[in-house]
């Protein structure tokens, strides 16, 4: 008989959910929704330059590594399609 465990868990979850919802309601979390829309924009932070500062050698190495991976992927598929 496993229903009692599941029902107990479901009911606990429902009661906690309702309790949190009621707290939010009483706490005014659902009021002033127009101001809430702007909350993600209200941070003041220094502007960060968007340019890359990576050194050429390292970038080229990683780029060619990725390129080799792409080539190997195509080679694998080509081999399977045409040479087997």
């Amino acid at each position, binding site marked *: 008989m*496993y229903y009692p465990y*599941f029902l107990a*868990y479901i009911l606990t*979850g429902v009661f906690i*959910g309702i309790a949190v*919802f009621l707290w*939010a309601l009483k*706490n*005014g*979390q*659902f009021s*002033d*929704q*127009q*101001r*809430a*829309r*702007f*909350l*993600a*924009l*209200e*941070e*003041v*932070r*220094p*502007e*960060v*330059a*968007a*340019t*890359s*500062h*990576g*050194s050429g050698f*390292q*970038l080229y190495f*990683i*780029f060619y*590594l*990725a390129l080799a*991976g*792409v080539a*190997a*992927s*195509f080679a*694998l*598929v080509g081999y*399977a*399609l045409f040479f087997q």
Partner: protein
Amino acid sequence: MPENPTRPATAAYLTARGFCLTSAAWMMMATLVGFIAALELVAPDLTANISWLLFSRLRPIHVNLVLFGFVTPGLLAGAFYFVPRLLRTELYSEKLGIVTVILWNMALVATMVTLAAGLTQGREYAEMIWPIDAGIVTAFCLIFFNFIMTVKHRNEKILYVSVWYALAAVALTTCTYCLGNVVWKPDSGSLTGIPDAILLWFYGHNVFGLLLTPLSAAAAYYIIPQVCRSPLYSHTLSLLGFWSLIVIYTHIGTHHLLQVPVPTWLKVVAIVDSIAMVIPVMAFLINIWYTARGKLGLIHGDIGGKFIFTGTIMYFIVSILGSLMALPDVQRVTHFNHWVVGHAHIGVLGFSGMIALGGLYFIIPRITGKPLFSLFLADLQYWMILIGVSGFAIVLTISGLIQGHAWLNGETVYRVLSEIHIYNIIRAALGLLIFLSAVSGFYNIFRSVFSNPGENP
């Protein structure tokens, strides 16, 4: 902002930095293991007689490292950045955060070693043995404590929707993880029979629904308005989406068990709620897409925003697929084959993984005070993952349909294996692409956090 202006930038957001590096490093390991496992589908004898490299051991290592090594820490890195900022305060305890990061990484190392050694509880997504479960639950408890204390000390009365999502994700996952792993039975980590299956899939689907999805939504709700430089389309709609997600998503795990003798009422609840998931999904997507309406140029110009916006498109695809797959007639074809694997890759890599990476690339310049080491490498990773996950979706869907129809027609397995061989080869090739994107991403993120030659602005 009430931040301490005398605190040097390098001392700030240590927890977020720790989770950034955790995510980037474990993404490499997780995708390498996935690639090797995919190779074994092409050449089953590739690692014969090497017990710790058998497919049956690599598969759970891959899945658990992707879930708990790459995606979750990536999303937590974002949460440890934006939760304090949205509450206009500092994180309650960076020291506690660092302890959490260390504990988290110890659990991941233990996961990899024990699963490779064959120490498993043999339940999907819940394979880890009890001591590791205890470590993960403790880490979630520490995160929840840190977040809730930050909320308590907040200077902003209203909790922005991202804070709701982050808190719920951590709190609910702590509970579902304990239940799903049956932590009160340390030896087996399981119940017996059908109740165990129900409990396992309640947990299994909630790893996506109550951990990855809310943390991803939280990151998107914070970052997209900033990238677009416009307010959220509707905060009320976002809260509607949040509460409907909490109410609906918790019940749908049993749609994994439609072929199993679980109670019919539970199957009906699971199917109805799987369709009803359209409500929270569309509430989220309409909100994000309307916020970004007319601002796609700005999103294209921000690498973090680009990753995240693409993640929302993947969310649309994976959610529609998920709702349809819960229908019994559809599931007769799509269940127990590669279709589900394709669906999982769109969800975890395309949606949550993309958003996790977008969050990392968005916050790293802000927590280090320096630009990214290389925008080029980040862009390269974006395209490699986009091509990889789109390819996964296509080949796994085709191969899944072949498998599903063959099964329905009563074909023998060995005849089908030759038909899907080419798709397994393409899958392995795409896996290599994803692994190399992870190497490139780790290098970029490591150099951005440490020894970045960029100047402070």
